[in-house]
């Protein structure tokens, strides 16, 4: 699935938020001027910290909250006045919301009974859905008799059994332990690819978002900070918030002293001048934050090979199996982190050792200073 490819034509948008705002109390906007298009068959993730308005956005799409302003289109049709049960949207809730007084089969039969499907058809669909989530033998059980992971899969099956074109998931894996969560991420991705449904997925877990999504919309305070494919988001964050939220990065605050096309020179107090890629700077003399991924920093580079080279002192070395995490003190900044692969050929560093570090201009992104 190539998310950006799918979005090349805006006419193909299956879900479209246009100018949507939402306030609960009439004072603070929880969602501010949201414009978002989701393509047919796309897996779009809304990623953001708690309270950033993800659930609210999802609830507006599902029909449980009304937008204060703007409108939402589904398949080209405005759905502002359509009640939730007419929208034909499958939904998976964080706590699964399986009906406790019904068996697994009755839970799955619920949307089919509402749609007045025939008995044989209902049965066949339930069986197919349960097989899809590998729970064929559990139809007679009550939700209370299932483990968390199994309940999660039943909730998934129930959201899909009536064949919706759009499925919404609000932190569906939040209650599972790490191993199960990773397993389910792949499972959901497999189902998405097999069925070709459109999925709008909400999470605050960046790894989950990177694993599953075609595109990720990073939310903060009711605004989409960046909407891009995972690679793009990680490699080319457009704001300090995104750089901070997705993956780890070293932040260096400074002031732009010179602009040179796509590059700029930034003065970091106590460190010196750094050459960086001018991604989101307002001009010479303006403050900026440099974002530098820990794995893009090289230790003891060959002199002259990199535009940015500084001396540093090793403060701490932590062995983490697949890599070595090294905390450095760079001219008074002692939270500078470098990740080194722990395979052979690694420069062996000892705490207290004086070394030099360096990085490329394009790996160091000058972003907005919040």
């Amino acid at each position, binding site marked *: 699935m190539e998310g950006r490819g799918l979005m090349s034509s805006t006419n193909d948008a299956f879900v479209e938020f246009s100018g949507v705002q939402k306030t609960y109390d009439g004072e603070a906007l929880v969602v501010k001027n949201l414009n978002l298009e989701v393509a047919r068959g796309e897996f779009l993730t809304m990623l953001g910290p708690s309270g950033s308005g993800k659930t609210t956005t999802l609830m507006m799409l*599902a*029909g*449980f909250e009304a937008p204060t302003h703007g409108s939402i289109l589904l398949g080209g049709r405005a759905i502002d006045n359509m*009640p*939730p*049960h007419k*929208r*034909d*949207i*499958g*939904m998976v*809730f964080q*706590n699964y*919301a*399986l*009906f*406790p*007084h019904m068996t697994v089969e009755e839970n799955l039969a*619920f*949307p089919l009974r*509402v*749609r007045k499907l025939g008995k044989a058809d209902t049965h066949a669909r339930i069986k197919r859905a349960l097989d899809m989530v590998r729970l064929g033998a559990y139809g007679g059980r009550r939700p209370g008799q299932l483990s968390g992971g199994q309940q999660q899969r039943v909730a998934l099956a*129930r*959201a899909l059994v*009536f064949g919706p074109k759009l499925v*919404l998931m609000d932190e569906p894996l939040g209650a599972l332990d790490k191993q199960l969560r990773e397993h389910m991420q792949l499972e959901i991705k497999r189902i998405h690819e097999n069925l070709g449904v459109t999925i709008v997925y909400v999470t605050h877990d960046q790894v989950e978002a990177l694993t599953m999504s075609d595109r990720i919309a990073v939310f903060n305070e009711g605004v989409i900070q960046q909407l891009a494919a995972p690679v793009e988001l990680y490699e080319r964050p457009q704001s300090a918030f995104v750089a901070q939220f997705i993956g780890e990065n070293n932040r260096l605050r400074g002031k732009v002293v010179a602009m040179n096309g796509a590059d700029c020179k930034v003065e970091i107090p106590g460190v010196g001048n750094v050459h960086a890629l001018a991604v989101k700077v307002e001009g010479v003399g303006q403050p900026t934050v440099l974002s530098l991924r820990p794995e893009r920093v090289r230790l003891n580079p060959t002199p002259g090979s990199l535009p940015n080279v500084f001396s540093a002192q090793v403060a701490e070395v932590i062995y983490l199996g697949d890599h070595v995490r090294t905390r450095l003190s760079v001219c008074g900044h002692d939270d500078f982190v470098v990740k080194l692969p722990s395979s052979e050929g690694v420069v062996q560093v000892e705490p207290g050792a004086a070394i030099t570090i360096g990085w490329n201009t394009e790996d160091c992104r000058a972003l907005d200073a919040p």
Partner: protein
Amino acid sequence: MATTAVRSTGSPKGMPLHLKLRRVERRQKLKAFILVLPLLLFILIGFVLPIGRMLFNAIHDHTLLTLMPRTMTALSEWEGRDLPDEAIYAALIADLKDSWAQKTATAIGKRMNYELPGSLSQVVLSARKASLLTSGPYKEAMIEISPLWGRQDVWNLMKRGTSAYTDYYLLRSIDYQYGPDSQIVASPPENAIFRGVFLRTLSISISVTAVTLLLGFPVAYLLATLPSRSSNLLMIMVVLPFWTSLLVRTIAWVVLLQQHGVVNETLIALHVISQPAELVYNRVGTIVAMTHIQLPFTLLPIYSVMKTISPTYVRAARSLGAGPFYAFWKVYFPQTLPGIAAGCLLTFILCLGYYITPALVGGAADQMVSSFVAYYTNEELNWGMASALGAILLTATLLLYYSFNKLVGVDRLKMG
């Protein structure tokens, strides 16, 4: 490896592990027991013993056995076919003489009067006259004094008195009594009121339970779904009845519902009715007042269950295609059943014991079992009847509770 070692050889001190565990558990059990001991004693002394004693009264009556010891001994030989012989009459006279001297004749007369109305005065008279008799033949003399002593049914009654245990009170409570030959017969219509009283108690309790459910359920729903600021106010209004004396509330209903009370005056002023409606001292008044008192008891368990039902269930149902009513009925309502069952059971059982409210706002035909228990306890001093009615009410309640438990399962209830 470490675990196997521990399992096989036990603790370092050499004591087997399971013994050690039992010792710790025993200490904890003892602690728990000491914690509940005061309440246990209180319940035992203040509740179980008095009720047990009371229930015992329903089947135990040794009035005749203790007050007429000679007659009772003599009667134990009697077959009951003809009138007793001279010896038994002699014993009767000796007992009556004693009773006259010890002023217990009234007690004997009262006991006999329960089963044979009109015998009280005859017994007292016989005792007075018998105290003057000096020589026989006693049989003729006694029948001369009062024809009572020539009646077969009287002697059969005396014969039943030879046992300290009686089922007379229980039989009376379900409208049976003893006939002249000690056979069990239906009570005559003027005495056969208790089945009606029990049925009335049942029907009033069911009505009140149903009305509280109908009124309470929507309010509970509102309480559980409203934002907490407005629901707190509503909650105070709901529990307000708890903070007012039951007597005050009942009297308030009399004031409201009486012939020229607020309700009638308003309805007449609005031309809804032309004549004052009979709203109090009848079934309407009883049910209105009881419903008011019982409403929180039904409502609060339902509310507490509803409070635990996440709104996402209905949302899930809606997203799956169910309309608002269908989602409520198929998804929300079934989850409130444990609360409904608990609230209704509570109200129903409390209603069975109502006494003051029907007495104040009901008519003669609205008095429930407890009123009769009170009547027999306070007015008639017939503790046997009071106990028998109480015992039957208690048994019926326990049976209902038992069958309810079988149907719904009390462990599924949520009281709060």
